[in-house]
């Protein structure tokens, strides 16, 4: 095999495109599995519990902390321009448009995404997926689809919780600690935030992030080689790949939203 840097680049590029094609194919398989009965309600509920409910404390706590930091940083910056009355708008817009979906996304990747990849990878290495195939049960339908669907479903919900707790955290700092007027905090927030440009953009972002995570995390687990080393590599790769794609997608959505 010829081995110049150009050849290597070419091989890397073509194998990358092949990988992209495989993931797209896999994602199509998940969509097909979603629409194909039986509905696996119990499996999905279980996955929502694992990915969503178990992340609630983390998300709410992180949201509150981020909101408090934003409140403090925002206040010290705004007060220089005498615009501290706009603190609510600053905290709210930053949380809704960016930090809510992005930080929630990264936290869920780290918590639920990695767990999903590791769990499916372990099922591959302990032959649980082959066991399902032997019982004529499609692992895509029984294992992959509920987990991917749950990740895509809980992401906007968790992001909304994050934002609400963040706004509350900003309120605690701005109103209780610094002594701004609570009414003007909320008023500037309500005036600044719009549905289509801000809230809808936020929900669309987190839904896209959730879908990305659902597909990549399950794909990496599903294709992980059947040994402990392979599972840990797949898990790392799922976390890194999804984080990078999330940030790229964030920029693209923000740019196309035109704001």
């Amino acid at each position, binding site marked *: 095999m010829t081995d110049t840097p150009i050849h290597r680049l070419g091989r890397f590029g073509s194998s990358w495109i092949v990988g992209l094609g495989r993931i797209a194919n896999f994602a199509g398989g998940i969509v097909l599995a979603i629409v194909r009965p039986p509905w696996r309600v*119990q499996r999905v*509920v*279980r996955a*929502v*519990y694992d990915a*969503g*409910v178990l992340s*609630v404390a983390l998300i709410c706590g992180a949201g509150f902390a981020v909101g408090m930091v934003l409140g403090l940083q925002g206040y010290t910056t705004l007060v220089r*321009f*005498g*615009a501290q*009355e*706009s603190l609510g708008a600053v905290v*709210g817009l930053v949380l*809704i448009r960016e930090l809510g979906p992005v930080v929630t996304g990264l936290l869920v990747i780290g918590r639920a995404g990695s767990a999903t990849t590791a769990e499916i990878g372990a099922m591959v290495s302990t032959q649980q997926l082959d066991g399902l195939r032997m019982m004529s049960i499609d692992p895509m339908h029984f294992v992959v689809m509920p987990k991917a669907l749950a990740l895509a479903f*809980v992401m*906007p*919900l*968790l992001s*909304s*919780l994050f*934002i*609400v707790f963040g*706004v509350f955290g900003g309120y605690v700092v701005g109103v209780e600690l610094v002594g701004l007027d609570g009414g003007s905090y909320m008023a500037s*927030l*309500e*005036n600044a*935030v*719009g*549905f289509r440009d*801000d*809230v*809808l953009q*936020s*929900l669309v972002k987190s839904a896209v992030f959730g879908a990305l995570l659902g597909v990549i995390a399950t794909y990496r687990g599903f294709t992980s080689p059947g040994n402990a080393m392979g599972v840990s590599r797949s898990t790392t790769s799922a976390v890194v790949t999804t984080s990078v794609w999330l940030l790229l997608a964030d920029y693209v959505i923000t740019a196309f939203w035109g704001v």
Partner: protein
Amino acid sequence: MKTSTAAVRDFVVGVFVLASLLAVAYLSASLGGLSYKGAGGFELVAIFDDIGGLSQRSPVKISGVKVGQVKAIQLDEDLRARVALDLDPSLELPIDSSASIRTAGLLGDQFVSLEPGAEDQLLGPGETFTYTESALSLDKLVGRLVHGDAFGDD
């Protein structure tokens, strides 16, 4: 025993989904202003020479009370700013009412302030304000002071 743990899990998932949907609803309706849509629907138009920093969703106020918001801003044929206002339908504004662009505080957000007139005839949906006053921008104001015609008519 086993059924009850599964049932507890289902219940907790239900609570989680409900609470999160409440958060979504709060963001959309209360913060996002979706709920205000209910009171809108009465559209009036005001033409300005200069709208300053006015933008979509900027509030519309009468005597400081919010009665609606800016729905759209376009340039009309005469290259002036045509601002569509979405107002509370119960408003009764005489045809000689005026619209002006004001600033909340020295550096705050801009909003449209309406001044009711005295005529008996009322403005109907889609009609245009006859009298408008454009945004007063700080740099223009400073310019006038420097050139000593601060109190000259504009």
